[in-house]
């Protein structure tokens, strides 16, 4: 197991480094520096500003300083557009929000998806199964950027039940629509994976043995079938998490929840490269970390994997 952890870490660290290097050099090739404006600054002023941010140093040195800053001080650098605020400030302000609704959506998608999948598999080829399959098929085609406007139209504009946006400290009324919008397509995927996995497990020999022993159906499902069923679901959690992180950008824009996504897209539209770079690396780091965790969880759960 320890060997496996080390091996996975050996993949995770280069992944992050490659991501940082790709993004960093993409930024460098971008036309125009962060301080080119329509009214050109006097050369001395420009030189002073660039010296302040360390932009007069060679690229590899800037990259080195940047990586060292992240690793030693968790410092993602300043924003070039807003002089009074660093990338760290943006993260501190927006990340708790994103994390809150992201985590809730993740839990909701997993629980609803697994339950729906298990029920559909147990009632295989009944009306219930067909309804579940149809529902998940349609739900899978409803990504967050489609769900968000539909939800606002129905619940805010037509029914007037829920506030159309805002955060308000994470009150539950403000959470409902972001969570539904973010989790719909993922609960559908989880349900489909669970259903087909459960069907396969229920047809396997050890379940037949359990049935032959005369165990009650609930014991068979809960004690014997559920754990192997969940294995493929666990391996889907990594991609699901990535999808949620990406989706949070849409949620932040659409529901004005105040998470990082809004800053991310604004920085993209305003070409605030420092913020973009910092947030991309943050998102990338989270992804790599989470993939690592799910892989370890998988290895720990599955007795067949022993590296």
């Amino acid at each position, binding site marked *: 197991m320890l060997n496996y952890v080390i091996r996975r870490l050996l993949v995770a660290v*280069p992944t992050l480094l490659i*991501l940082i290097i*790709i993004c960093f050099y993409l930024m460098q090739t971008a036309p125009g520096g962060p301080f080119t404006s329509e009214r050109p600054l006097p050369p001395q002023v420009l030189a002073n500003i660039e010296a302040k941010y360390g932009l007069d140093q060679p690229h590899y040195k800037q990259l080195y300083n940047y990586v060292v800053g992240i690793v030693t001080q968790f410092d993602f650098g300043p924003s070039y557009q807003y002089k009074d605020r660093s990338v760290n400030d943006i993260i501190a302000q927006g990340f708790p929000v994103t994390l809150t609704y992201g985590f809730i959506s993740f839990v909701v998608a997993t629980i609803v998806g697994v339950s729906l999948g298990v029920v559909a598999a147990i009632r295989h080829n009944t009306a219930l199964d067909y309804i579940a399959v149809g529902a998940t098929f349609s739900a899978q*085609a409803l990504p967050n950027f*489609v769900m968000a406007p539909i939800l606002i139209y129905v619940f805010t*504009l037509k029914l007037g039940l829920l506030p159309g946006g805002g955060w308000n400290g994470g009150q539950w009324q403000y959470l409902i629509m972001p969570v539904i919008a973010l989790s719909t397509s993922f609960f559908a995927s989880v349900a489909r994976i669970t259903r087909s996995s459960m069907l396969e497990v229920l047809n396997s020999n050890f379940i037949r043995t359990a049935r032959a022993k005369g165990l009650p159906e609930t014991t068979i499902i809960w004690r014997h079938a559920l754990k192997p069923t969940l294995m493929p679901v666990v391996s889907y959690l990594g991609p699901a998490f990535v999808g949620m*992180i990406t989706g949070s950008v849409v949620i932040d824009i659409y529901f004005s929840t105040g998470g990082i996504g809004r800053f991310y897209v604004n920085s*993209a*539209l305003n070409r605030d490269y420092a913020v973009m770079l910092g947030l991309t690396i943050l998102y990338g780091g989270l992804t790599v970390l989470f993939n690592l965790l799910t892989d370890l969880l998988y290895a720990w759960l599955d007795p067949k994997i022993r590296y």
Partner: protein
Amino acid sequence: MGMVKDPERVEAIADNIADAREVKGRSLWQDAMGRFVHNKAAVGSVFILAGILLFAIVGPYFAVWSNEEIDWARMGNVADVGQPSFENGHFFGLDSIGRDLYSRTIQGTLTSLMVGVVGAMVAVVIGTLYGAISGFVGGWVDNLMMRTVDILIAIPYMFVIILLMVIFERSLIMLFVGIGMFSWLDMSRIVRGQTLALKHKEFIEAARAAGVGWFVIVVRHIMPNLLGVVVVYATLLVPGMIMAESFISFLGLGVQEPNTSLGALISDGAGTILYDQVWQLAIPLTFFLTIVISLFFIGDGLRDALDPKDR
């Protein structure tokens, strides 16, 4: 020969045998076709998708307004007079700044379909070749190639694509480059697995014994046998590509005006829904959902047809 009394009968029997053999010997593809045709949802989806494609190709000939023209007479009051109507030639109504939504929807549908198909094709070509070579050559080459994929696959590609679109000029080409860079990774893993299974089959050994070079074996003998898996996965990849493009366009970072895609249209429509201009969201959304769901059904049907084990 002397024992046969009736040569005509022998011939007839021979004919029968020959015929019977022809009837019995169905290929994998004929079998798959048979199974696919019995899947009503999949066949229905093929027709629906063909219908949409036909509409997108023939539709422009019926358009009264082009996709760039602004209907100045109605643009000031889109909410009241911009609804879909046959009288003024705006079959799908107007968009938020007074352009004809019918022409724009057709244009967006074509763009989205093209992104999906091209993206999937790039994934098929690169992924199949990469995976087949990796699996067939084996050893340290395989190790190196697959570790590279491990690293690339862990990168949240959407953010890199957005970065590309921001830094370089926003264009369809850049979008293809960005999507193409990452879409082949899963494909290469799947293909590698299949190649490993095929590698030690007798016909490959035979080719090797006959002195065929490794690259020719990969291209001529391994790849045709991977076709089933590749076709299934490619079909499921198309809706994924369409969704990825729509996501980027939704953020306002995708295709640029006057070009449009279903994602950009949905984004526009989502913005004006507050003023009750529902059709601006409903129409592109209907096209988007119909295309994506049809592709899901077709992909699922193909999987059941081509890979009967994995039901």
